[in-house]
């Protein structure tokens, strides 16, 4: 397997806080990789550095062989990397369909017109929002806003999808659907790096997990291995593993 994403020595500081500290890892095409760690350990910052929301202070990121560290977000998106945000960021005055159309039009697909509209509706169906095409994002429940966030990311036709706690807040039934949806995306060839605290999802989805603490990688391996790791239990899981 070739590495789709190769991260070397990645660091980012916020004032006195070293949020990401000489981080190195790689993700192979086709993998589902979980990025775990305590709150404030730097997981979201890593997603921000990869997707171009933030510039790293040092280190390299190779995506599909392109050096992308410090490149602007829209260029990285057009190379085939899409992401969702933990706190959703819809375009508030546009309908759900138009939110997705925006991704189709200005992403790597450059789709427009009737075909794009059909695609947008298909993406909304796919994430379970087919009933809310004309709705404004503000009229959706929190969970439906997260579905919209995913549809928008998929509109960019990504090879690598970064999910930031996309499954948080789902009830057991919805969680099963959500896990199925992510597995389906993986099945159609999208590589996935997900930040998540829902252990049921981690166990059933991830081929491999990376665990961070205070900006550094403290464990990596199979989900069963890392979740049994003494330091991971101490820093992250606590005495219960049923989150």
């Amino acid at each position, binding site marked *: 397997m070739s590495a789709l994403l190769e991260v070397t020595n990645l660091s980012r500081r*916020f004032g006195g806080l070293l949020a990401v500290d000489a981080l190195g890892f790689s993700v192979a095409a086709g993998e589902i990789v979980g990025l775990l760690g*305590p709150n404030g350990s730097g997981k*979201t910052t890593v997603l921000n550095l990869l997707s171009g929301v933030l510039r790293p202070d040092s280190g390299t990121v190779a995506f599909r062989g392109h050096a992308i560290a410090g490149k602007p977000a829209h260029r990285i998106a057009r190379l085939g990397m899409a992401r969702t945000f933990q706190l959703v960021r819809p375009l508030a005055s546009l309908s759900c369909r138009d939110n997705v159309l925006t991704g189709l039009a200005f992403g790597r697909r450059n789709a427009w017109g009737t075909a794009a509209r059909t695609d947008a509706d298909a993406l909304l169906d796919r994430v379970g929002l087919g009933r809310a095409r004309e709705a404004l994002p503000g009229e959706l429940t*929190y969970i439906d806003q997260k579905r919209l966030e995913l549809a928008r990311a998929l509109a960019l036709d990504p090879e690598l999808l970064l999910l930031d*706690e996309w499954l948080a807040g*789902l009830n057991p*039934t919805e*969680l099963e659907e959500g896990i199925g949806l992510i597995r389906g995306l993986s099945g159609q060839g999208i590589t996935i790096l997900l930040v998540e*605290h829902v252990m049921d999802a981690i166990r059933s989805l991830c081929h491999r997990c990376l665990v961070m603490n205070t900006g550094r990688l403290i464990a990596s391996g199979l989900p069963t291995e890392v979740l049994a790791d003494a330091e991971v239990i101490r820093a992250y899981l606590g005495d219960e593993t049923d*989150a």
Partner: protein
Amino acid sequence: MLEVKGLSVQYGKHRAVDDAALSVATSEIVVILGANGAGKSSLLKAVAGLQPPGTGARVALDDRELVGLQPHQIVEAGLALVPEGRGIFGELTVRENLLLGAFARRARADEANNRHRVLALFPRLAERLDQTARTMSGGEQQMVAIGRALMSAPKMLLLDEPSLGLSPLLSSELFRALGRIRQDGIGVLLVEQNARKSLAIADRGYLIENGRIVGAGRAAELASDPAVQRAYLGGAR
């Protein structure tokens, strides 16, 4: 004690909450379980005065009627809400966010004491008092939101999905912290998807479906109820 009767929330033609009734005693933790979109957040918002509670609704805190009061007056009466999505002041520091929580007249005199309690509950915030809130991680911002609500010295604390975004370790700590808040004589009403952990610490629970309260009981009974297990606890473990 919080008593809610005949509360409905209407968005245009859509009735999100239909004739809900519930109560929470002091020193009691009550959890509302239900699917996303069932009306849980709308119910909390209506109690906190952020949504009109429909005609004929009664919301009383220690026999004081809250219906018709502005949200800030409801905080002043002793009821605080930790909203979904946190709603913290991103450009302010942690210290300033907490200080604003103590803006209510009822909370001013005891501000220093309450801050100590909050920082003991969330030591991470003590390390980050001067950090700008929006630069904190999602879970840390959740702590700020809960801390800010506690700074208003509430008698009744409403929490909308407080464990969202918290690590397994922190969410366990949060639920333990709610137990300590109960010991201080505060009533807690929470909406939570983590049914297993919340039922483990709660005294009672309500089930809500399509805006209607369809079940209620002791937390231990709900936790062992097959229908509840199927709907809210996921597969057997």
